[in-house]
């Protein structure tokens, strides 16, 4: 497969990249790892005039800030994230999520920032034009979505794995733009609109990820379901973080984020509320899993039907909560 023609620009720093973005206008794409961008360009889905390659920018090593926060460079490859001892200590589920993305080669190339900015996917859109429906869908400026019968809005699914883990941990992202830097929680990063999935303008770049301190009484786990396990986008993923009381049986606070079911990762507010302030008995965990399945409203995607995904979500949520609880106990 051949890439279409474009101008290749290689800045040496983030500041230079921000300047270049403003200079070259909206028909420019940033390329960090290229594992999501180049397939789409090869399929002819997008045709940017210029590609700003971020591969010439030195990658900062993970660093613990004086307040205990862990700062990760968005340009770190997923393989580096997965094997970093600091990440394993302060965000074990981020390392787990990163370890499960794509294949070994993809993890070596793809970056953490790129995984957060992944384009929402749909089996009708993400393929060569030859195999696509004749009438264009919303993503190709058409007026219908083929995913649901008589779909009146785009239902592409955000399939990133690391986003769920970061939302569950309550991480923040730093975004550099012409007006300087701004911080945003990972949860607020996603708009839920597949046509404009992330709340970052065309002139801004996601530069850093800030992870809060990981207390001793915290347990977390990451669950992912897909048919083949490797080289595949998740059918769904669940990240659970439990903050337990001193007795290690009652839950003070829970954060559950589910990815790859809708156009943005979603928090399971009902399931979290069912657990917060309560002892985590078997029944309570079962109830939380049921609530999560009821409130997720998954889109059918990549051959998985909505009822099937709801059932899977119930199972994966239950498993993830149990594992997170076990990890607090130190088992």
């Amino acid at each position, binding site marked *: 497969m051949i890439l279409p023609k474009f101008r290749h620009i290689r800045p040496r720093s983030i500041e230079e990249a921000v300047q270049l973005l403003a200079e070259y206008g909206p028909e420019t794409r940033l390329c960090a790892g*290229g594992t999501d961008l*180049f397939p789409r360009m090869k399929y002819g889905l997008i045709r940017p005039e210029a590609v700003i390659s971020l591969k010439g920018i030195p990658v900062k090593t993970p660093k613990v800030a004086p307040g205990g926060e862990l700062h990760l460079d968005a340009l770190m490859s997923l393989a580096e994230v997965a094997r970093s001892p600091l990440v394993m200590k302060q965000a074990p589920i981020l390392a787990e999520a990163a370890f499960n993305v794509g294949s070994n080669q993809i993890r070596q190339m793809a970056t953490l920032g790129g995984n957060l900015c992944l384009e929402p996917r749909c089996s009708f859109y993400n393929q060569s034009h030859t195999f696509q429906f004749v009438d264009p869908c919303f993503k190709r400026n058409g007026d219908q979505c083929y995913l649901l019968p008589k779909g009146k809005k785009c239902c592409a699914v955000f399939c990133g794995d690391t986003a769920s883990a970061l939302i569950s941990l309550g991480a923040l992202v730093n975004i550099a733009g012409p007006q300087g830097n701004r911080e945003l929680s990972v949860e607020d990063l996603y708009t839920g609109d597949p046509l404009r999935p992330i709340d970052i303008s065309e002139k801004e770049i996601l530069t850093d990820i800030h992870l809060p301190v990981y207390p001793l009484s915290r347990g977390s786990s990451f669950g992912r379901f897909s048919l083949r396990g490797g080289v595949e986008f998740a059918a769904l993923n669940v990240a659970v973080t439990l903050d337990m009381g001193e007795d290690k049986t009652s839950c003070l606070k829970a954060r559950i984020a589910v990815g790859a079911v809708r156009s943005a990762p979603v928090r399971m507010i009902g399931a979290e509320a069912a657990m917060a302030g309560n002892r985590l008995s078997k029944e309570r965990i079962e109830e939380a899993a049921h609530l999560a399945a009821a409130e997720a409203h998954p889109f059918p995607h990549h051959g998985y039907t909505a009822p099937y995904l709801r059932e899977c979500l119930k199972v994966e949520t239950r498993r993830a909560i149990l594992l997170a609880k076990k990890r607090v106990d130190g088992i």
Partner: protein
Amino acid sequence: MKQLVELMVNNESYELAVEPQTTLLEVLRNDLGLTGTKEACGTGECGSCTVLIDGRPMLSCLTLALDCSQRDIVTIEGLAEGERMSPVQQAFQDCGAIQCGFCTPGMILSATALLEETPRPTEEQIKKALEGNLCRCTGYNKIIEAVKKASGQIAPDQIIPDKIISEQEQESQ
């Protein structure tokens, strides 16, 4: 507009003028004649275009040649020392982990990178490291066996080639 790029492939330096959209795979195959690196899907799903960039397995079909300046690239041609094959290549041959051979360069490079980092990998680690390399012939068992052999976890006499098995079967019949 073509741009100049200096590539370091298999310890040899090349200076080339390439179009910005040229991938490393196209340069390796078309300009340098290193056709051991294969193209199948072109979109990063099959792993047959795997090369080692700075010692890590990466997909040359999704890497721009312009992004590879000052990076150390190793292709399958760079593994053997003269006539002598690398231990991983030899193990693949000994175990019969090759059939049509199309996926083999990628498999061997992925395995080489794995053994560089983890000299005695478990079966799970081997599977995880090779998950991005698809093979449509062998059924993977012999490939996993070959990596185990290359890492010294299977003694050479433990591997019985298919030919001997069939001869033994014939004798017993």
